[in-house]
């Protein structure tokens, strides 16, 4: 009894893992100081930089579920004749969380089109998409071709489910130590709240694919990996347990140009994959930046900005 009475005050003084900002960053609905953009049914973390009269350029981050922290340096384009919108997609990063089942892969192009309509002086925009952001850019061109003038696709994820399977992104590296990190910590941190799920997801994903050749010395920052939105997007794009999305059909009729940027060290997105991805578009340019992998827009900011300025 004495032990219990001694422990109770100690336990009540413990931090709450689910409290905003303790282990996982607070989202826009929890921290009023964060920059925000309100849509009809959600609040996004995001900001617009530059002159509202300038043409709009939207930075579309990777994931699904991640955020634009690693692409934030690209907002420097705002001083170069662009109005730049950087935002965390619905349920991702510091944007408002949503309950499971409320988002699909096709919710994101709708959000992006709504943002273009709100901020662009002429209702169109150029998109700079990284990784999943490249897939989302393609999906937006597919659904709203009249809203997109150009796309810069930096290491874009597979535009089709079939290509995803070939790429082997769902294969688990059984030699990786982060599997131990994930399962061992399950007994210490539960899995029944957004914060806990995000915490576990970060452990799982942050070292999952060595073939991407991401820098460990200068890691690309991520504010929050949104587990629920990742699950929602992936499950909405599966049929009979297999990836079934198709963001490629119809791209060949789009009048704009897709500018591809690849990291030369990425061994997952090899030459065959790059050629397949580029073949979906009627007009393309392609650049390989040597010495870097999937995190090239973070490691080679100046080169990436110069390249975007050159092609757009």
């Amino acid at each position, binding site marked *: 009894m004495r032990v219990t009475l001694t422990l109770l005050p100690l336990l009540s003084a413990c931090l709450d893992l689910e409290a905003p900002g*303790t282990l996982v*960053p607070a989202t826009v609905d929890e921290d009023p100081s964060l920059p925000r953009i309100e849509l009809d049914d959600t609040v996004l973390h995001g900001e617009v930089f530059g002159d509202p009269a300038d043409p709009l350029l939207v930075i579309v981050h990777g994931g699904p579920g991640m955020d634009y922290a690693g692409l934030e340096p690209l907002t420097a384009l705002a001083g170069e004749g662009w109005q730049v919108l950087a935002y965390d997609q619905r349920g991702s990063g510091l944007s408002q969380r949503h309950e499971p089942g409320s988002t699909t892969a096709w919710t994101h192009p709708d959000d992006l089109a709504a943002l273009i309509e709100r901020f662009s002086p002429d209702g169109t925009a150029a998109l700079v998409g990284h990784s999943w952001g490249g897939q989302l850019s393609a999906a937006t061109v597919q659904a709203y071709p009249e809203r997109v003038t150009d796309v810069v696709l930096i290491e874009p994820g597979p535009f089709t489910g079939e290509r995803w399977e070939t790429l082997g992104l769902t294969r688990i590296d059984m030699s990786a130590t982060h599997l131990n990190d994930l399962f061992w910590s399950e007994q*210490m941190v*539960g*899995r029944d709240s957004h914060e806990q799920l995000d915490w576990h997801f970060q452990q799982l994903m942050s070292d999952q694919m060595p073939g991407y050749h991401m820098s460990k010395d200068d890691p690309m920052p*991520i*504010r929050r990996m949104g587990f629920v939105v990742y699950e929602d997007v992936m499950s909405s794009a599966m049929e009979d347990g297999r990836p079934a999305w198709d963001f490629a059909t119809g791209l060949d009729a789009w009048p704009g140009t897709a500018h591809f940027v690849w990291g030369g060290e990425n061994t997952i997105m090899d030459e065959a994959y790059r050629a397949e991805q580029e073949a979906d578009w009627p007009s393309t340019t392609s650049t390989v930046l040597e010495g870097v992998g999937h995190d090239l827009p973070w490691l080679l900011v100046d080169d990436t900005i110069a390249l975007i300025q050159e092609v757009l």
Partner: protein
Amino acid sequence: MLALALALLATPAAAMELTHDVEAGDQRLLMGMASEPLFTASLGYARGVAVRGHDLTVAGSVTLPLHLMDGRHQRVELSARATLAEWRGLRLDARLGLGEQSTRSHLFSGVSLTTRATLVGGWFPERGFIALEATTQWNPATWMAPSSFYLDAVHPEAQAGWYASTAAYQTFALQGGVVVRERLEIGARVGVDTTLRGGSRTAPVAMGLGVGWRL
């Protein structure tokens, strides 16, 4: 050599004490593997002691992930087991384990206080046993500290400190064991993990194999 070979094939005896009888003065070296659901390996030591006329089995064990024998994660547990009731070959035992479970990834370091309470009831004849087990595992608090990577690249305001428990689990299992030789006994358990708090487990299966070597 036989014990070593079995230990290499097998799962946590040390944590589960899949032993037959450890009478006062007896000593056991315990080795095993388990699925929690991560496959783990354990090494432990148990000794029978008499306290005011009652036989207790006190034990200590170290457990770590079997995969890569990953020393960044480990659990140390001290336990005591006593027989609550006995009638002919039937027995009801209780076991209480206290300890720590620590982890270190590139995102966090953490140490949990651990408690594990077990009831084992079954038939314990001369050279073996078969019993039902109910175990409650609760980590009342965990010290967590974000890594410099996490502070630099993810969440600069992440707070280090004691975090209240967010997970507790209950295991129901069938366990059994046999005395193979004078000094060697082997045991096994299989059951299900259920969640008291913390969401469903990745794989709600509890399995274990263990070897006890009488010293």
